[in-house]
């Protein structure tokens, strides 16, 4: 059982047109820039993978990461909580022109829907969004005199996430707040692909300190010096 792949292309090459892709990160923190870059490069060369549904807290910033995917024209739909950023041009232009679909989900509901998918919970009730536009069309129930909205699990074909350490069996740790959605997405996707800053042998991560157990991880590539999205943005980089 060695989940390590030779390179990013080998790890991501089978992601297809129309796939739903969860992408870890909150703003630039945890954004798997190199995995995203490989998808963009392949799309530019081959026209595939296009028509993607991308699931992330945000909808990209500047001209890198998810914003670059949107600019490239490979994203049909965003599922996110906060499609605003310091430079939201890529998403905003297409959204206002009706060329990209948006499913807006409250942040905690987004996190819980993803966890639910990973945990085999098809639906749950939350007070969040009760009585608002975002609850329209959803079943409502009352428990102990309070109203709740029924929300459904959110699965994906693929998760792309950025880790700090990975062992060959897929156990992961993260760097600080770059953890955010990654452990949930790893649970919820049919195939979870990880870029790790360093790959270690099994036993190289203390079993007490594992954040994502290997059972949730399918493929790992080492990206020893990953780009940080926020740093790239401040350099005015394009992807």
């Amino acid at each position, binding site marked *: 059982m060695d989940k390590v792949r030779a390179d990013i292309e080998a790890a991501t090459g089978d992601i297809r047109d129309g796939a739903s892709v969860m992408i870890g990160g909150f703003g630039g923190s945890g954004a798997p820039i190199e995995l995203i870059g490989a998808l963009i490069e392949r799309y530019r060369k081959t026209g595939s993978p296009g028509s993607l549904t991308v699931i992330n807290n945000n909808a990209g910033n500047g001209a890198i990461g998810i914003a670059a995917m949107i600019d490239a024209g490979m994203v049909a739909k965003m599922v996110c*909580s906060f499609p605003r950023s310091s430079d939201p041009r890529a998403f905003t232009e297409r959204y206002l022109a009706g060329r990209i679909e948006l499913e807006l989900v409250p942040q905690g509901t987004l996190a819980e829907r993803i966890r639910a998918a990973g945990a085999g919970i098809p639906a749950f009730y939350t007070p*969040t969004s009760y009585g608002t536009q975002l609850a329209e069309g959803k079943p409502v129930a009352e428990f102990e005199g309070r109203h709740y909205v029924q929300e459904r699990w959110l699965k994906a074909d693929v998760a792309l996430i950025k880790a700090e350490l990975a062992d060959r069996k897929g156990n992961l740790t993260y760097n600080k*707040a*770059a953890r955010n959605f990654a452990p949930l997405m790893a649970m919820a996707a049919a195939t979870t692909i990880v870029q790790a800053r360093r790959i270690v042998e099994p036993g190289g991560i203390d079993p007490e300190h594992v954040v994502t157990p290997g059972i949730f991880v399918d493929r790992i590539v080492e990206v020893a010096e990953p780009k940080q999205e926020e740093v790239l943005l401040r350099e005015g980089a394009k992807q």
Partner: protein
Amino acid sequence: MSAKLSNAQIAWRAAQDIPDGAYVNLGIGFPEMVAKFKPEGREVVYHTENGILGFGEAPPAGQEDWDLINAGKKPVTLKPGAAFFHHADSFAMVRGGHLDVAILGAFEIAENGDLANWSTGPGSVPAVGGAMDLVHGAKRVAVITDHVTKDGRPKLVKKCSLPLTGVGCVTRVYTSLAVVDIVDKRFVLREKLPGMSLEELQGLTGAKLVVDGGVKDLIVPEV
């Protein structure tokens, strides 16, 4: 119209009500300013949606770690006893009622406690973030806001005209002119600027201001 409090002064006033030992979430933007005015000697643990408890102020320029940010994507530092966790655990803290206080911004607050702070309606890109979770999670949901909009219309209203963030969720509003509690679906005036009459304040408010008990002077230092 009388003088009004600056944003910093509104934030100062809100900060005085945060008890020692509280777990607090400050909404992105204006509410983040509340942290600056925490009274000496009180310990407050700040929560941010993206998975930190116990973060501190911004690092010096040049020492930012962009994997250590708050919900507003601004760089922060850690205090001793901080913890990282993933987003589902983070919102378990929110939704599960573990936060003592959430302080948010507002477009409109209705006298029944409804809040509108996420969408200005069609034609713009809607963005909700964690606001809808916070308003139903924290034990106390307070709002800080100018008393009126830029073009002078009341922000405290009978019924919100903008899309709601939450129903009946706000319990206290700190404005540039007053401190108002929401009790039994009514605005109850607690404090107002000393230079302003009740009538004047009522004229800038879109729903009845009830006086129930005394109204104190809202006195805030220059900050």
